[in-house]
């Protein structure tokens, strides 16, 4: 009797659930076309992939796991709209999560049950998941529409598993007006940088804006330092580290890279361990600090606060004075090797790589650089002239090189915590180095 009652309740619940479920999805469908942009590129509509001829108007729903930074949140609507124009029979079912916190757990979760058809992460994810044999190869048709530089670090044993869609630049953002007023030149060496810092201090200006409450920020800048002071000289340093040939405890270059954190810490405002990125970016825009070691993700904030803020970017100077600007492939599309809908997946890749209006819309919205051939974003990026200059001189380096050898989760992220403890005086510099060395087993994704 009692059990009947319970099963009755459960049954009613399920029916109710099913009913509301249908209502919900119907509503989502209604939303999508409403936002479709008027000027869809009829003229430049690329050829549809052979396999999926116009005849196949079979309804397909693809699942998408998108690991995003907040600057990316919102692009899913743009993609939906473009897809609805070109391939109305394909619907994407998005699951958008925060890349830093939730992408890896979600992937672990789905590796137990079956991957979504499409996954959007970062270039370094390819190195983590491709060796598990779960990612599908990306068709050359779509790869060829992207820049060659995009392929390099998402290719394993000659097979490319990721489609890199956009890129971020990382380095030191500086307040152009402030630099001009004080007659500071772009620093090339540590001495140049020190001179600016000294002058800042003499004039009561905070040299660096920083937000060390975010451990990811410490980890990020440390990799920037490592790129120019370690990987610049020794591109396989991470592999040698695992082979036991080099270590943090003995390698002067790696130690120098760690020490730059102290330079920033000593020359920022005292409340850095209580300051978040948004507040930090605001300080930068308000002229309370002259420089900030960061990446393109700050541009959205800068321009939100003051659309006329004038800033540039330069690589953080290394010991040898030949620092390169850091380039990070960002949005990277991966596909499931076992998906039943390879054709439909290819249609989505076709929209992403072939629809230039969509690409420009996304780049403008995220304030990032294009990784597609012949596509240039139209937003005003005051630091673009600097980027172009370094690009022309060949002074740009892809950070995936470092991120593939020394992984983020479990290694870089953990090391950043030790660096924070050292800066706070809770641990010695030697402790931080020893801790990084002890983590050697976790430094590789596999």
């Amino acid at each position, binding site marked *: 009797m*009692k*059990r009947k009652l*319970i099963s009755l309740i459960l049954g009613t619940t399920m029916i109710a659930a099913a009913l509301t479920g249908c209502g919900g999805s119907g509503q989502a469908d209604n939303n999508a076309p409403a936002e479709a942009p008027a000027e869809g590129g009829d003229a430049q509509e690329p050829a549809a992939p052979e396999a999926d001829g116009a005849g196949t108007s079979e309804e397909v729903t693809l699942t998408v796991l998108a690991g995003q930074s907040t600057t990316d949140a919102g692009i899913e609507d743009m993609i939906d709209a473009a897809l609805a124009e070109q391939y109305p029979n394909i619907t994407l079912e998005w699951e958008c999560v925060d890349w830093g*916190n939730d992408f*890896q*757990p979600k*992937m*672990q979760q789905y*590796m137990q049950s079956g991957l979504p058809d499409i996954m959007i992460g970062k270039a370094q994810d390819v190195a983590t*998941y491709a060796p*598990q044999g779960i990612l599908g190869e990306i068709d050359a048709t779509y790869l060829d529409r992207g820049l060659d530089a995009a392929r390099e670090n998402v290719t394993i044993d000659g097979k490319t598993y990721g489609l890199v869609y956009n890129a971020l630049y990382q380095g030191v953002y500086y307040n152009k007006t402030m630099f001009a007023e004080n007659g500071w030149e772009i620093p090339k060496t540590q001495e140049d940088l020190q001179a600016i810092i000294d002058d800042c201090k003499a004039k009561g200006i905070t040299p660096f804006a920083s937000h*060390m*409450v*975010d*451990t990811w920020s410490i980890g990020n800048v440390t990799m920037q330092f490592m790129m120019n002071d370690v990987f610049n000289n020794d591109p396989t340093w991470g592999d040698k580290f695992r082979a036991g040939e080099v270590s943090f405890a003995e390698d002067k270059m790696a130690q120098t890279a760690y020490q730059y954190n102290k330079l920033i810490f000593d020359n920022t405002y005292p*409340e*850095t*361990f*209580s*300051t*978040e990125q948004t*507040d930090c970016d605001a300080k930068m825009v308000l002229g309370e600090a002259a420089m900030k070691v960061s990446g393109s993700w700050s541009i959205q904030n800068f321009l939100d606060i003051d659309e006329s803020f004038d800033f540039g970017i330069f690589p953080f100077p290394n010991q040898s004075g030949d620092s390169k600007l850091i380039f990070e492939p960002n949005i990277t599309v991966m596909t499931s090797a076992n998906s039943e809908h390879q054709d439909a997946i290819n249609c989505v890749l076709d929209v992403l790589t072939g629809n230039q209006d969509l690409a420009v819309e996304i780049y403008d919205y995220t304030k990032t650089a294009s990784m597609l051939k012949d596509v240039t974003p139209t937003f005003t990026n005051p630091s673009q002239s600097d980027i172009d200059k370094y690009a022309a001189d060949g002074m740009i380096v892809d950070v995936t090189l470092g991120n593939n050898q020394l992984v983020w*989760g*479990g290694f870089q*992220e*953990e090391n950043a*915590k*030790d660096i*924070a*403890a*050292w*800066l*706070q005086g*809770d*641990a010695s510099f030697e402790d931080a180095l020893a801790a990084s060395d002890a983590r050697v087993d*976790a430094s590789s*994704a596999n």
Partner: protein
Amino acid sequence: MKNINKNSMEKNLEKQYLILVLPGLIIFTIGLIIPLLLAFRYSFTSWDGMSAEKPFVGLKNYIDLIQDSDFRSAWWFTIKFTIGNTIIQNVLALGFAIALDSGIKAQKIYRTAFFVPCLISALIVGFVWLKMFSNVLPAVNDLLGTNINFLLFGDGKTVLSGLLIANNWQWVGYWMLIYLAGLQSIPGDLYEAAKVDGAGAWTRFRNVTLPMLAPAITICVVGITTGSLKVYDLLVSSTKGGPGRASTSVIYQTYTTAINGRQYGYGSAMSVSLVLVLLLVALIQVKGLKSKEVQQ
């Protein structure tokens, strides 16, 4: 004859009762106990949480655990956080309850004011206090021309007190309600009798209030300790375990090891050890507090 009849009736009753218990038992076992057993199994492997094979490594994870200094410091933080919470929250909650029960006006307004914070999820509470400490309270400093250090989350030495403030802000009202309910059900004549006996306010509190509140104290102490030992959500949106590792709790450490660090087997060993400690603590507390209740 009569006896046998009674026995069979009891058996029959028992069957009916059993049917009442079973659904809950099944749901609970599937949803929580089996996952726990699975975690126990994984704790003997070096599984990375991703690949198909889960290599058996015996007790290695547990041996590593004992030597893991990060895990030890996570325990140290969790213990300090738990002790701080148990003391402060109980004292404040009881204090507030007594104050509200002392016949002040508009009791309901105070009750609501203290209770509302616990309706907010811990994730949001962490975020709100991050903003309070780094933006709002320094602005109060500016306003008053004072120079109090409010940047509690920004230093390994003060981060614990900052988190205690945030956690107590959230939960004091909740436990206060339990104490308040306990106080309001103490018969007034007990106090009268004590007064007639010439007992002062403190003696009345010690000899009447506290013993009568013993069951409430049990609920509160057990609830607060087990809750604090499991702290996680609050940290995710506020200190993220930092600065450095200064506010990394056991669960936080477990989660980052198992997921971000791709050491699922090792992380499982961490959670199994946490469950064991939680069980032990709860057992000791319930036994200890219950025996006090009985005495009185």
